[in-house]
């Protein structure tokens, strides 16, 4: 497995052998396809939107993140949401960098 990006709490990897990606959430390692990674990117955008963060700050400090067709569910607080967003942005920045380097 090759390291893609590390944020404060989470880490992403690419596995050429398995042709997929892995995300280490600290308490568990989750295998995701590229399609599922795209879905996480979409969810990260939604969770880190101004409206959602404001809702979290004023109502409850936790949010549920379900992914891989509801196979996994994790609870994130505001800091973890921001960190998760950073992980996804960093992961896709690395993917894009590789695309540019191999073009």
């Amino acid at each position, binding site marked *: 497995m*090759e390291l893609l990006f590390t944020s404060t709490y989470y880490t992403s990897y*690419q596995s*050429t052998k398995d*042709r*997929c*990606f892995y995300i280490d959430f600290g308490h568990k390692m989750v295998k995701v*396809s*590229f*399609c599922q*990674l*795209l*879905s996480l*990117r*979409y969810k990260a955008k939604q969770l880190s939107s101004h409206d959602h963060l404001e809702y979290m700050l004023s109502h409850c400090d936790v949010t549920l993140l379900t992914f891989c067709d509801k196979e996994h569910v994790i609870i994130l607080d505001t800091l973890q949401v921001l960190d998760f967003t950073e992980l996804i942005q960093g992961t*896709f920045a690395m*993917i*894009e960098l*590789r*695309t540019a380097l*191999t*073009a």
Partner: protein
Amino acid sequence: MENIARQQISINLEVMDMLNQQIAKEQHSSSVYLAMASWCDQRGLERSASFFYRQSVEEREHMMKIFAFINNSGGSAYSPDVTNIAHEYASLKEVFELALQQEISVTQSIYKIVAKCRKVNDFGTENFLQWFVEEQMEEEQSIRDILDMFDLMGDAPLKLIDERIPKE
């Protein structure tokens, strides 16, 4: 190291995001035209109502084209939320003026995506969007022609103007 992501998707991710925003715009346009068709239908303006019903279907077809393109390219298309659709208009002329504004806004949005495609060398998507560039030119012109007709008809009764709205 192999680039697994590039093997799965053939379009640029930022372009994909813009295409998803375009899906929302096309769906919004479809709903706006449906509201306009309803307004015309309720006032017995049958030709105008038919015109906007057709426009509504066309915009939905545009949305579906982009939707399919994203998914067929290995990306993820997202079904959009549609809100803030106006249902009140001051006159039939205002309806067509707003329709022209709507088309101009869609055209500008398409141009922005084409410009982005050129910037990031996403030639596949740029090629796909050429059809939309032509289509937008035609759609803007068809509404402009109707607005010209409003000016030429002056204070003619609304029914006479409605009868001159193109059937197809």
